[in-house]
C-alpha cells in the first residue's frame, strides 16, 4: 500500500467531496420529501448553515471524558468506513487505503461508531439517551445478521474479501452486477441497508418526538456538529458500500454521485411509504425474512 | 331509571327530584346516607360508572353542594346525586370518601380538596398537589377567594389595561353617526 503524503491528500480531497455531497444529498432528500407533501422545503444550503450555527453556540457543560469522546468515536467510525473502501473502481489515486481484507474491517467500522456513541451518550446521564442506546444497539445487532450473511455469500461467490476484486468482477455490463449474479444475497443486503440507514420504518432509535432525539439528547453545539458531519459522511459511505457490493461500483465521480443518490433514495422512498416499526417488531423482522434469505444465499453460494 | 330513583326515595329518603330529560335526573340525599345510596346504585341498580364528582359553592345559602354523576351503561341513564354540605367560613367541609367503590374517585376527591377545600378523610393521596404546585393561599374555586386581587398581588399586572363594553365600543367606533344602525337587523342579524 502507498502511504505517501500525496495519497493522503487525495483521500482528504475525496473525504471533502463526500462530506459536501452528503450535506447536499440530505437537503435534496428533505426537499424531495417536502415536494411529496406539497411544500417547498428547506433551502439547498440549510445543512451548511446549521453546521455553522451549531459551532457558533456556546457550551458550558461537562458530563465526563467519555461524553467528549463519544462524537469523536462516531466520526472515526464514519471516516474509517470511508478510508478503507475504494471510491472509484480501477483508479489508483481514488482507491483510498483499501487492501485485500478491507471488507471485514469495514463491517467492524460500521459498529465502531455506534459503540462509541453508546458509551458517550450513556455518560450524558439522560434517561432518553439510555433508552435510545438500548434500542439502537439491539436493532443494530439484528441488522448485522442479514448484512453479514449477504457479505459472506458474496465473499464465497467471488472467493475474496477485497472490495477491489469484488468491484472488478462486476465490471463489463449491467448483467455482471451482483444484484443479477447473486440476487438472494443482494435482497438480504438491501433489506439490511434499510436498517443501516436508520430511516423510517427503522428510525425508532432516533424517534424525534417520543424520546427526544434518542442517544444525542444531551449533545449540542460543537458536539452535535460533529455528529451531523458524521451522519453526512456515513449516509454517502453506506450507500457507496452497497453500491460497491451490489451495483457494480463506480468508475467516475459522476457515476459515484448518481449511484449513491439512488441507493440512498431507496431507503428514503421506503421511509416515506412505511410508518415506523416498534423496536421489537423491527428486530423480529430483521431476524426473520432478511436472515432467512441471507442463509439461503450463503447455502446457494456454497453448494450450487 | 325509574327503579333506581324509586329506591333512592323509598330507602334513602331522597328528595327534590328534578328530571332534566329522559335518562338524566338530579336528586338530593342527606350527606349521612349518600355513600350508602351510591353503593346501592352501583351494586344493585347498575349505575356502575362514576362519571364525575363536582362541587358548587352556594355562598349566599351557606351550602357547599357535591354532585356525584353516576352512569348506567345498560339503561343509558344518568343520575346526578346531590349532597348538600354545610358551608364553613374557612375551608374544611368534610364528606365520606367513595374511593373504595371506584379507585379513580380518589383523583376527583384530590381535585376537590385542592380547589374547594372539601375534606375526604382516608382518601389516598388527598393532600398531594394535583394542578396547583405548592399552593399556600385559600382554595381558589371558593367564591370568597378574590382571584383578581390575588392575581394583582402575585403577578405583575402591566399598567394601562382598559376594558370596553363590546356593545358600547361598537356603537361608538363603528356606527358613530347613527348608533341605531347597531340595533338594525340589516347590520346585526343577532338583534
Amino acid at each position, binding site marked *: 500500500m502507498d502511504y505517501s503524503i500525496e495519497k493522503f491528500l487525495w483521500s482528504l480531497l475525496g473525504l471533502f467531496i463526500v462530506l459536501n455531497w452528503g450535506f447536499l444529498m440530505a437537503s435534496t432528500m428533505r426537499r424531495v420529501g417536502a415536494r411529496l407533501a406539497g411544500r417547498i422545503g428547506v433551502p439547498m444550503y440549510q445543512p451548511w448553515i446549521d453546521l455553522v450555527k451549531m459551532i457558533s453556540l456556546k457550551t458550558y457543560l461537562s458530563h465526563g471524558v467519555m461524553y467528549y469522546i463519544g462524537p469523536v468515536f462516531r466520526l472515526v467510525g464514519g471516516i474509517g468506513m470511508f478510508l478503507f473502501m475504494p471510491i472509484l473502481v480501477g483508479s489508483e489515486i481514488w482507491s483510498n487505503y483499501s487492501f485485500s481484507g478491507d471488507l471485514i474491517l469495514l463491517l467492524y467500522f460500521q459498529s465502531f461508531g455506534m459503540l462509541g456513541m453508546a458509551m458517550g451518550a450513556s455518560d450524558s446521564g439522560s434517561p432518553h439517551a439510555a433508552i435510545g442506546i438500548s434500542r439502537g444497539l439491539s436493532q443494530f445487532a439484528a441488522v448485522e445478521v442479514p448484512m453479514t450473511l449477504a457479505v459472506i455469500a458474496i465473499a464465497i461467490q467471488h472467493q475474496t474479501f477485497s472490495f477491489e476484486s469484488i468491484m472488478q468482477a462486476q465490471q463489463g455490463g449491467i448483467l455482471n452486477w451482483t444484484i443479477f449474479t447473486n440476487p438472494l444475497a443482494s435482497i438480504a443486503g438491501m433489506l439490511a441497508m434499510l436498517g443501516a440507514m436508520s430511516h423510517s420504518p427503522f428510525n425508532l432509535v432516533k424517534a424525534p418526538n417520543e424520546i427526544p432525539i434518542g442517544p444525542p439528547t444531551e449533545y449540542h453545539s460543537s458536539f452535535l456538529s460533529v455528529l451531523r458531519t458524521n451522519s453526512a459522511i456515513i449516509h454517502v459511505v453506506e450507500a457507496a458500500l452497497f453500491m460497491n457490493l451490489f451495483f457494480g461500483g463506480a468508475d467516475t465521480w459522476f457515476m459515484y454521485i448518481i449511484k449513491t443518490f439512488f441507493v440512498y433514495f431507496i431507503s428514503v422512498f421506503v421511509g416515506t411509504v412505511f410508518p415506523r416499526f416498534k423496536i421489537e417488531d423491527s428486530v423480529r423482522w430483521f431476524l426473520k425474512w432478511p436472515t432467512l434469505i441471507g442463509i439461503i444465499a450463503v447455502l446457494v453460494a456454497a453448494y450450487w | 331509571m325509574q327503579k333506581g330513583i324509586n329506591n333512592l326515595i323509598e330507602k334513602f329518603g331522597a328528595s327534590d327530584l328534578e328530571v332534566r330529560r329522559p335518562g338524566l335526573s338530579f336528586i338530593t340525599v342527606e350527606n349521612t346516607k349518600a355513600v350508602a345510596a351510591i353503593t346501592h346504585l352501583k351494586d344493585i341498580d347498575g349505575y356502575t360508572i362514576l362519571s364525575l364528582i363536582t362541587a358548587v359553592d352556594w355562598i349566599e345559602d351557606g351550602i357547599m353542594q357535591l354532585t356525584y354523576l353516576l352512569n348506567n351503561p345498560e339503561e343509558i341513564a344518568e343520575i346526578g346525586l346531590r349532597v348538600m354540605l354545610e358551608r364553613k367560613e374557612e375551608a374544611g367541609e368534610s364528606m365520606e370518601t367513595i374511593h373504595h367503590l371506584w379507585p379513580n374517585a380518589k383523583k376527583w376527591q384530590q381535585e376537590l380538596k385542592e380547589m374547594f377545600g372539601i375534606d375526604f378523610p382516608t382518601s389516598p393521596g388527598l393532600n398531594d398537589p394535583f394542578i396547583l404546585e405548592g399552593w399556600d393561599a385559600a382554595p381558589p374555586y371558593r367564591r370568597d377567594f378574590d*382571584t383578581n386581587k390575588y392575581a394583582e398581588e402575585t403577578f405583575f399586572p402591566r399598567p394601562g389595561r382598559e376594558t370596553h363594553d363590546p356593545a358600547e365600543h361598537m356603537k361608538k367606533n363603528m356606527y358613530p353617526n347613527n348608533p341605531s344602525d347597531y340595533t338594525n337587523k340589516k347590520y346585526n342579524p343577532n338583534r
Partner: protein
Amino acid sequence: MEEEKKDKFLAPENEIRQVAAPDGSIIEVNPLEDYFTQDRPKPYKVRKGPVEDFLNWARAESLWVLGFGTGCGSIEIPPLVTPRFDMFRFGIQMRATPRQSNVFVISGYLSVKTLKRAIRAYEQMPSPKYIVGLGSCTINGGMYYDSYNTINRLDHYLPVDAYIAGCMPRPEALLHGFEGLKKIIKAGKGHKANEYIENLDWYKANQKKIIKDWNMPDYNW
C-alpha cells in the same frame, strides 16, 4: 423564613438523607448540592466584526424551535409545517430537546406549573438563545389577566426577544414574528440570554415569588 418555606415544599427526593456506603459507613447526601452544580452562570462575551456578523446570519437563518407548547397558542405551531405555511423554507425547524434548540416559543398563557418547566428548559438551552412570546397572554395576561394561576407579564420571569400580539395570532403572524426575530439577530442585538444572566437575581426573585415549591437548583445547567 426562606429556610422554613424550603422545608415545606422540598420534594422528597431532594431532602437531605443518610445513605449507607458500600463499605458500611453512613454518609449524608444533600441531593441539591451533591447532584447538581450550584455555580452561577457567566455571561458570554459579545464579539463584533465580520466573523460575528456571519455567525449571526447563520444563527438567524437556522432557528431551531423547542417543541414545547406551553398553552393554547401551541395549536398555531403545527400549521407551520403544512404546505400552506411551510416554515422550513425560512430555516425554522422543530427540535425535541432543549439542548439542541435555540428558540423557545412561549405559546400563550403560562401557568405557574408550566413556568417552572419553561424555566428549566430555557436554562438548559445553549446560548445565544431567544424567546418569542406568542399571544396576548404573554404580554399582559390577555383574557387570563385575573386568573389565580397564570402569569401576567412574561418578561418579568424570562427575557423575551420578540412578542407576537393577538389572541390567537394566525400562523402568518407567527412567521412574521420569526422574521422580526431574524432582523434582531442579524443586527447583533439578540443577546437577551446575557441580560438574563446579568440580572439573574431579579429574575430569580420574581420566579421564586410565585413558584413556591422550588425543588430544583437555582440555575438548571
